[in-house]
């Protein structure tokens, strides 16, 4: 990657931050929490996007950002009201900006007229603003420089060459700038000033090439100069002044022997008039500057200038954290290395255990320490990848507002735990499911204000979005106080669609969970908000794909709650290594409730081969893992171990395995790329002995177990017809 490409990446990263700030800021303003600082921050963010886009030459981005910025400028100067109506134009504009940045980043061509609607809306606001306040300069064709502005650069005296004494030789100088001299950022005035430093300069401007005003091209120099320079400098030194314009002008420097023409000699022109006329407003400032050198103008002591600025913006000051931007790829590399370290450590552990006791005890002690450090290293690296879930949450207020408007319902969104940190890879995949759940809640859950009042609730519905760390997982809960799921309607629908057999008798929980079936929809009419109900199965699959699980609680008439439990990280996890049917597997510790060796008398065999375990007064269904994995008949011994696992929805079941080998950290290696999704298998890992072991997906195992006995069979395991391919090594 070239350094320019890297800079572009940096710029796009900055853009992502800017976009978030814009979104948050606009949302705050929309909800009436905005202050002048908020508008300023939003303006600055758009300005940064535009500025960077300018530097990197992303034209499509510049034009749109420019209009956006201009509107915000009007808003921060108070010419345009920060009213909800106006902000409603800005929010979609941020979407367009987001798209434009994404397209630019992907180096895709930006379709003609992309975002034209939004741009037109912005321009209409500008029209409104201009009518309210002063007419603004038309800035659609920005100049590279303010050529009409006579800002006299103030020469610093720090580098001034010593005064050149007058006298010496006289040089005749003819200097006629070429057509492109100004375009190449050269300025005759400065050349003349340089010349003046060399000695006594007398120049006369040739104005004979000046065209009529109508034909005048402002970026072409029409004036030339002739005159003399009396100096002690050499010809080379004079030529040096013209070094940068040599190819761009007509230049003649010749030693003068004859006397100077009297008119010039008698009255040397002090300095030619500025090449361009100065607008009246700029002239006084420039004039005063030309008189003084900058340091002599000392407006305010530093403290006075700096402190009010800081005091006036406490919110902004709070946000500044000492951070360093690191490419994700680099962190991922460290994560992978930690993974390899974990594996190497496990191998070392095996060797140590194979050694005679007297040599191994000290080694084992050291190894424990190494394991401890590795775990801390893993946690530190993972925390680097972590992002606060607020990045996803902050999109929701707007979604809720828009949907509420569209459906004519009153909805309030409460959010808690926005600062909960989650691995970035999970954050990325959480946005769509959450969006869908909230859409569903507003569309199907929350009732219309009239219905709510009739049901004795307040006319405003509430959606709560909560994130928190709970037992080594991140739990995200979306709850609403709407109507909840109507089990009768769901069951009727499921039967009508043939998703369950017509004579099936299901518990309310089982019925509620039917909404996760592919193709299930409870919406009587198709709305453009949550569509045809293709959502919930996709939501569930998305959550499962990141190793999470989703559970649903619904109370008829009172609302429903969807709980997403997500792993903290995807790369390394705590696992229980087990053996069954001669094979080694890993079960995620997060799914294991307890392990026990039950007495034979506690196991009751039911018809169909499925046993039940009596555990502290409760019955827990049992499954032979080797049956589930099709490893042949299980050895019927008393030595077997039962692992009580949580199926993900709070229900427990027991897995009968042959042997527990121990608890260790394992590195999760995805198998999906090579083998596709295998039901019941979440990935693979490399054990200390160098062999590959499959990591089992407990939730899927539970589904497989149920499918062997339940009427929901085919339905609950989406692809049960697919053979459960297993086999290690």
């Amino acid at each position: 990657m070239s350094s320019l490409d890297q800079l572009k990446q940096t710029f796009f990263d900055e853009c992502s931050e800017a976009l978030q700030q814009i979104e948050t800021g606009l949302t705050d303003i929309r909800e009436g929490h905005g202050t002048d600082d908020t508008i300023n921050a939003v303006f600055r963010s758009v300005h940064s996007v535009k500025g960077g886009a300018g530097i990197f030459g992303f034209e499509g981005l510049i034009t749109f950002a420019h209009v956006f910025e201009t509107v915000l400028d009007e808003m921060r100067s108070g010419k345009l009201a920060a009213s909800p109506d106006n902000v409603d134009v800005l929010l979609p504009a941020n979407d367009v900006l987001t798209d434009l940045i994404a397209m630019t980043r992907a180096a895709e061509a930006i379709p003609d007229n992309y975002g034209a609607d939004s741009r037109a809306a912005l321009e209409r606001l500008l029209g409104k603003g201009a009518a309210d306040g002063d007419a603004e300069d038309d800035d659609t064709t920005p100049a590279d420089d303010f050529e009409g502005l006579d800002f006299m650069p103030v020469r610093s005296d720090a580098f001034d060459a010593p005064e050149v004494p007058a006298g010496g030789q006289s040089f005749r100088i003819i200097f006629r700038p070429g057509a492109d001299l100004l375009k190449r950022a050269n300025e005759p005035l400065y050349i003349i000033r340089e010349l003046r430093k060399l000695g006594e300069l007398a120049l006369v401007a040739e104005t004979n090439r000046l065209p009529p005003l109508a034909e005048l091209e402002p970026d072409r120099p029409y004036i030339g100069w002739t005159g003399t320079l009396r100096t002690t400098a050499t010809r080379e030194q004079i030529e040096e002044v013209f070094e940068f314009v040599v190819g761009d002008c007509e230049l003649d420097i010749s030693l003068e022997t004859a006397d100077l023409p009297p008119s010039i000699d008698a009255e040397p022109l002090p300095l030619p008039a500025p090449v361009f006329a100065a607008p009246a407003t700029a002239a006084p400032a420039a004039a005063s500057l030309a008189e003084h050198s900058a340091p002599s103008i000392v407006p305010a002591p530093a403290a006075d200038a700096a402190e009010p600025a800081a005091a006036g913006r406490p919110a902004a000051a709070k946000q500044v954290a000492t951070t360093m931007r690191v490419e994700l790829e680099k962190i991922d590399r460290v994560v992978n290395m930690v993974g390899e370290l974990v594996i190497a450590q496990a191998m070392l552990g095996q060797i140590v255990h194979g050694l005679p006791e007297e040599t191994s005890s000290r080694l084992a002690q050291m190894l424990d320490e190494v394991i401890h450090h590795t775990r801390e290293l893993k946690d530190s690296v993972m925390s680097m990848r972590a992002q606060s879930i607020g990045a996803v949450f902050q999109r929701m207020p707007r979604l809720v507002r828009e949907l509420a408007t569209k459906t004519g319902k009153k909805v309030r969104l409460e959010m808690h735990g926005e600062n909960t940190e989650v691995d970035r890879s999970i954050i990325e995949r959480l946005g769509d499911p959450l969006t869908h759940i909230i859409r569903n809640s507003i569309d199907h859950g929350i009732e219309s204000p009239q219905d709510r009042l009739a049901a004795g609730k307040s006319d405003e519905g509430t959606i709560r979005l909560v994130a928190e760390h709970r037992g080594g997982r991140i739990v995200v809960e979306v709850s609403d106080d709407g109507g909840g799921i109507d089990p009768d309607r769901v069951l009727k629908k499921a039967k009508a669609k043939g998703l369950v057999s017509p004579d099936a008798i299901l518990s309310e929980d089982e019925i509620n969970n039917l909404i996760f079936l592919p193709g299930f929809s409870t919406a009587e009419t198709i709305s453009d908000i949550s569509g045809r109900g293709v959502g919930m199965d996709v939501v569930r699959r998305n959550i499962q794909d990141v190793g999470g699980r989703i559970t649903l609680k619904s109370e008829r008439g009172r609302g429903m709650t969807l709980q997403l439990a997500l792993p903290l990280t995807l790369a390394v996890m705590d696992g229980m290594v087990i053996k069954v049917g001669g094979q080694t597997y890993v079960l995620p510790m997060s799914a294991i409730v307890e392990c026990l060796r039950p007495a034979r008398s506690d196991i009751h065999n039911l018809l169909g081969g499925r046993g039940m375990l009596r555990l502290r007064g409760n019955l827990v269904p049992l499954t032979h893992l080797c049956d589930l994995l099709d490893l042949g008949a299980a050895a019927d011994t008393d030595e077997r171990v039962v692992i009580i696992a949580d199926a993900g929805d709070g229900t427990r079941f027991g897995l009968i395995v042959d042997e527990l080998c121990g608890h260790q950290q394992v590195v999760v290696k995805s198998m999906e790329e090579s083998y596709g999704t295998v039901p019941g298998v979440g990935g693979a890992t490399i054990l200390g002995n160098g062999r590959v072991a499959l990591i089992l997906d407990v939730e899927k195992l539970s589904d497989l177990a149920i499918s062997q006995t339940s009427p929901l069979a085919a339905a609950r395991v989406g692809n049960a017809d697919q053979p459960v391919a297993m086999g290690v090594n």
Partner: protein
Amino acid sequence: MPVAAGLKVLVVDDQNSVRQMTRMTLEQIGVRHIHEAENGKKAIDTASLQPLDLIISDYNMPEMDGLELLHAVRGHPAARRVPFILVTGRGDRELVVKAAQAGANNYVVKPFTADILRTKIEQVVGRLS
């Protein structure tokens, strides 16, 4: 006549990408000693710690904008004489006038090429050799 390689220049911008780009441009001109600051406060710190020959600062920055920084620099005992070039956006005439009043030595409109920046610097420090 100052030598580009000998100039100590401080680049102030809150956007890392812009700072890096300005650094690259300065390097093209031959400037070797480049300091960076991501906000006005850090710029003042840098300027108090070592002699600088030039400050090139963006205008739009959180906390302390370019003009506020300019005021602070001009009021700072150690840094008050350091030449200051303000980086402005296109079309911001009013800002340039304000900058002139506040004691900016020059301004440069973003985006700029190495040639433009060189010219702008030379207008302030003299021709670079």
